């Protein structure tokens, strides 16, 4: 997974930094079912495909929600492209990509 630090949040537009490669990304992200939305300084870990413009399901607008919900594919393992992690200062939360 690629670990991305949140540099800026403007409404739901997130600016993310890949610290390893120094590349920045801008995505419209919507999170469902969270008690606390990720903020500047928190980290998001994405499968590299979600950052690859050649990936068939690449989008500049992603939505994520609880893994047990029905609005995305079943997550069979942590290598799933649809699986993401949010690393807050005090905890880690896993979510999956929602569609629709």
């Amino acid at each position: 997974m690629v670990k991305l630090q949140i540099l800026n949040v403007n409404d739901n537009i997130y600016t993310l930094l890949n610290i390893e490669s120094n590349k920045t990304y801008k995505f419209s992200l919507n999170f469902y079912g969270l008690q606390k939305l990720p903020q500047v300084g928190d980290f998001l870990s994405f499968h590299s495909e979600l950052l690859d413009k050649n990936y068939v399901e690449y989008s500049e607008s992603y939505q994520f929600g609880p893994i047990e919900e029905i609005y995305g594919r079943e997550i069979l393992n942590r290598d799933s492209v649809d699986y993401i992690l949010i690393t807050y200062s005090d905890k880690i939360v896993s979510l999956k990509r929602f569609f629709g």
Partner: protein
Amino acid sequence: MNKDYEILKKKYGEHFAKLCRSLFPSLIEKEGQLSSLIIEKFAESKFLYEDIVNNSLQNGFKNYIMSFVKRDKGVSSANSYIESPFTLMKKAGYTLYKCETDNDVKSFRKYWEAGEELCTFWDNKRINSHLIFFAVKDNVNEIKRENFKSPLRQDEYGTSVISIQFTKSTPITVSIKNRYNHTVVNPDATFSNDLENIYAGLTKSFVEEYYLNLVNDEIHSFEIPGYVLAQDGRMYKYNYEIGNIYYCPNNIIIEENRQVTYLDKDKELLFDYFVLNFENKKLTRAGKGIEDGFVYGIKDINKIEIKKYNNEKTIIITPKIGENILITLDNTNRIIKYINSNITEIDDNFLQYNEKLSELDLFSLKRVRNWFLKYNKELTKLNLPKLENAGDYFLNFNKKLNELNLPNIIITGNEFLYDNQELTILNLPKLENAGDYFLNNNEKITELNLQNLKKAGSSFLYYNEALTVLNVPKLKEIEEGFLNSHPKRSSFIKNFTLKPETVVYL
């Protein structure tokens, strides 16, 4: 013969000119119109054709160019009658509904099977942030889910009820959802999110009816992977993007503010992210960013010569002391081969961002520091016969090397060949000390002879499951993560003692 065709052929190649002739038959008839539009929107490039076709972007390219024609030539809505989206959708066989409340949205849930429902139905605030429409095919009751065993996103069932959603905030984008949702690939881009694929004129119709400044119909919507839109409004192919600076073929650099800088071809050559100055005979790192160890290996230049062979060119550098240095570039000026027998030591970040180097011969090299070719993925031939000491992250992400001989290496830092998955032959007869994550992701090595290995850090061969022979007679102690995924891990482990603080879960 129309001059436009000839102009396009000269600047972008024959295939591109032919593509334009087939995509814009009426535009090309008007002398100067098409060529000037293309030149205005795309930097001169012989790669444009293959980059459009290889990415299946012919339609997007056509729409992109046509959007400027419409705007520039003033086919204004004031003078032409545009039918409403409801009328056009009716012509496409749909009844269109506009949702005003969340209850309106939820009333369409009945068309979706359990497990294929849209996230839209869960998101009770979406009505505030989006203009939401549903379109229901007039024969929807005849189209049954059970008759579609192998769903396709745009088959009859998938598109029998769709939701068209526009963001309310800028940039305004459209997403078209279908009835299968995530059962199919990329469900949020049904009809490629192009309303024209539902009915011709629908984009304009929505734009006019709801005053949408739709990005998908505008300048930002068309993207070619590996191209950047510069301040001058043209798209440029680039080789590398580092820290928001784009290093392009043809001696072009696009700065952070997207300003275009052209280097003088008579004086300088831009390759990868380096500039070779023919006048002062100096090699420098282009743009901003950390220095690259590559630069320090090429100093005190006496003569520079460039020879072209087919699509490649080789820079022959004669130093004041030592043997000739050869740097081979591909047709976009990316380094693909490098031979330098003069350097014995390399500093940090040697070709750190280079991705395309396939052959490297540094005959005299004895020591490299950290981040050596960290992001290179293509290297297949590596000759470092005298290398004794490698720092951290040596070829960290290389995937293609399948044989590696480093007959004199004694010490490696952390993450040596961390992500290499192809290596099957590894000859490191003098290696004594390997850092953490040595061969962490390699899954293919079956036999490993490291006669002199005395110390290996944590996660050594972490994901390897194929190893059958491990010959490390001098290695007495192992650390956490050793052969962590191997089915016979316990039989390997019994030959070693664990480092005192190590916890191993068997």
